[in-house]
């Protein structure tokens, strides 16, 4: 899948006669996802992650831009054609209790995708529902239940089952573990990794938890105020972050190891995330960037390849050394754990 120059602006009405302002939720985003990989997307809230996910699934219409799925641009296609592509994509949302119809049994929830896509044979539907339940680690006894009778972790398993029951190629996961407890989170992460391996799925994994993203992703893209600011192979991004915003995120992540606390921590974080209405000109990060130079205030940096498939959108990407901010996190990621 390739996304090219994707934009989504939402109007915000200020008054009856005034011209609307625009929230640039996703602004000129271009990237590729390769078959069988996981592309992680991180960013603060409001940076446009969910909007991007909805655009990719064509749940909302982009303002401009192209989305190539297997070579076809699915932005222009007819409603009927779109259904064909829907079959090959699935989505899992953050809050499992909100993403399941409270008045539909688990069995019905899982049957719907099959029926919608023309699989009517009762025996086959039943077999596939049982099969998928087993794949996501739920028993037959859950079929007749309703969402409120399941725990958060079980609900998320159902949501995952619904997303993969049609054997899609691509699954978009929008913060699938962030509303779950730590112990349940690990269960779901294991499940996702196993399913990807067994079914050869491609994932777009959205999260604001850096540790989780690193764990599941092959490559990671960082978003800031609707823009892609850095994209690189997962471990590379962690030990060799080039964009000051990426380094800011890494330096702010709480690290579950008391031995590395206070090492050059927090010092990169300044200011609050600004509003996506009328974002700052030039580099959008410049009001919060400790390395900003005059050029940053006027000229918008573009994504540039700095080698090895590592792209950065920063005027000073090549000259800055940000390793001191990221070393703490890298240390904990690579070093030993409880045995």
């Amino acid at each position, binding site marked *: 899948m390739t996304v090219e120059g994707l934009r989504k602006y939402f109007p915000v009405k200020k008054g009856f006669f005034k011209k609307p302002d625009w929230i640039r939720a996703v602004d000129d985003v271009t990237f590729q996802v390769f078959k069988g990989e996981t592309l992680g997307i991180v960013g603060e*809230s409001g940076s446009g992650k969910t909007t991007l996910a909805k655009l990719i699934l064509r749940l909302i219409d982009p303002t401009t831009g192209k989305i190539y799925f297997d070579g076809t641009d699915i932005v222009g296609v007819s409603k009927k054609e779109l259904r064909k592509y829907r079959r090959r994509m699935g989505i899992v949302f953050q809050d499992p209790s909100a993403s399941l119809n409270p008045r539909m049994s688990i069995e019905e929830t899982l049957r719907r995708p099959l029926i919608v896509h023309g699989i009517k044979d009762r025996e086959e539907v039943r077999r596939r529902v049982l099969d998928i339940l087993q794949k996501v680690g739920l028993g037959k006894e859950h079929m007749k239940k309703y969402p409120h009778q399941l725990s958060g972790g079980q609900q998320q398993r159902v949501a995952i089952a619904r997303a993969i029951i049609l054997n899609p190629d691509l699954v978009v996961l929008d913060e699938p573990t962030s509303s779950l407890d730590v112990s349940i989170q690990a269960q779901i992460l*294991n499940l996702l990794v196993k399913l990807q391996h067994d079914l050869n799925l491609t994932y777009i994994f959205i999260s*604001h938890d850096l*540790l989780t993203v690193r*764990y599941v992703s092959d490559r990671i893209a960082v978003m800031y105020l609707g823009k892609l600011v850095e994209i690189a192979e997962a471990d590379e991004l962690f030990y060799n972050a080039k964009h000051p915003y990426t380094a800011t995120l890494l330096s702010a992540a*709480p690290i579950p190891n008391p031995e590395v606390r206070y090492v050059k921590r927090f010092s990169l974080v300044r200011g*609050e995330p600004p509003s996506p209405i009328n974002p700052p000109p030039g580099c959008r990060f410049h009001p919060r960037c400790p390395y900003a130079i005059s050029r940053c205030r006027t000229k918008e940096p573009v994504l540039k390849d700095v080698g090895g498939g590592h792209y950065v959108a920063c005027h000073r990407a090549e000259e800055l050394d940000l390793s001191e901010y990221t070393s703490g996190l890298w240390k904990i990621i690579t070093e030993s754990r409880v045995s």
Partner: protein
Amino acid sequence: MTDPLLRVVDLKTYYRTSAGLVRAVDGVSFEVYKDETFCVVGESGCGKSTLALSIIRLVPYPGEIVGGKIIYRGTDLLKLPESEMRKIRGKEIAMIFQNPMNSLNPVFTIGFQIAEPPVIHFNMDGRSAWRRAVELIGKVRMPDPEVRARNYPHVLSGGMRQRSMIAMMISCEPKLLLADEPTTSVDVTVQAQLLNLLMNIKRERRMSMVLITHNFGLVAEVCNRVAVMYAGKIVELGPVREVFRNPVHPYTRGLMKCLPIGTKRKEQLYVIPGQPPNLIEPPPGCRFHPRCPHAMEKCKKEEPPLTEVEPNHYVACYLRR
């Protein structure tokens, strides 16, 4: 160590619901010392918020503190009449909640709300209280305190609201600050700033803090001692370095092992099987036994007491003995 500032002894808080008796906090004991940051960590529903609300006696209906003592500087708060307790809240012990939007009043400016507690507790006159409020808003590092003081909560960002909340809570210089998931609803960068702010203020004003969280990262970053809660009980308690270096309780160990760190990408993670029990009918004996890989016969029948396994490190598990 010196005398504790706060001593919680065998505290029990239950909710009487139509589905049954929810034993949200069921026999919890710990101490908080002066200048200390004490963390309570655990999964959702294990009773952390109920514990904090019990300490300031604000457990909502149908909850009730059914037993135990909460000794604050020598007095048992549970024996005080409500009028006395009101003097303690805000002035001696203050609390910061998870969702600042619900705890700030939408119809008053934040300046007014920050000025309010000193008026109540010290009879401060309105004008000097307002001046102090503006000062405090600067103190929690909001830009343009004069302007911000006149803002209503809904125009502020989540981070700003939480800063206002902190300003309000420290306005009477409490000696103990209870913070229930103060950063759960904000972004990592804002979280880092808020934590930094809280820690600085705490150091400056020599406050003690009880920080409630489900995030082991936060625990490791800021606290001195940590208590791990499971199903209404403390299962492990000790100095933070000690607990992280040498977790003893199988639940603590499980939680630390299942974090996606120190692993290769996509490598199988350790999992704690099953899910937390409901607190209406918690499992008998050790409450963790249905999920514990080391469970023995004894664990199913008798409840393990919290015992010292190393100096200041307490664990409620039969395994070590």
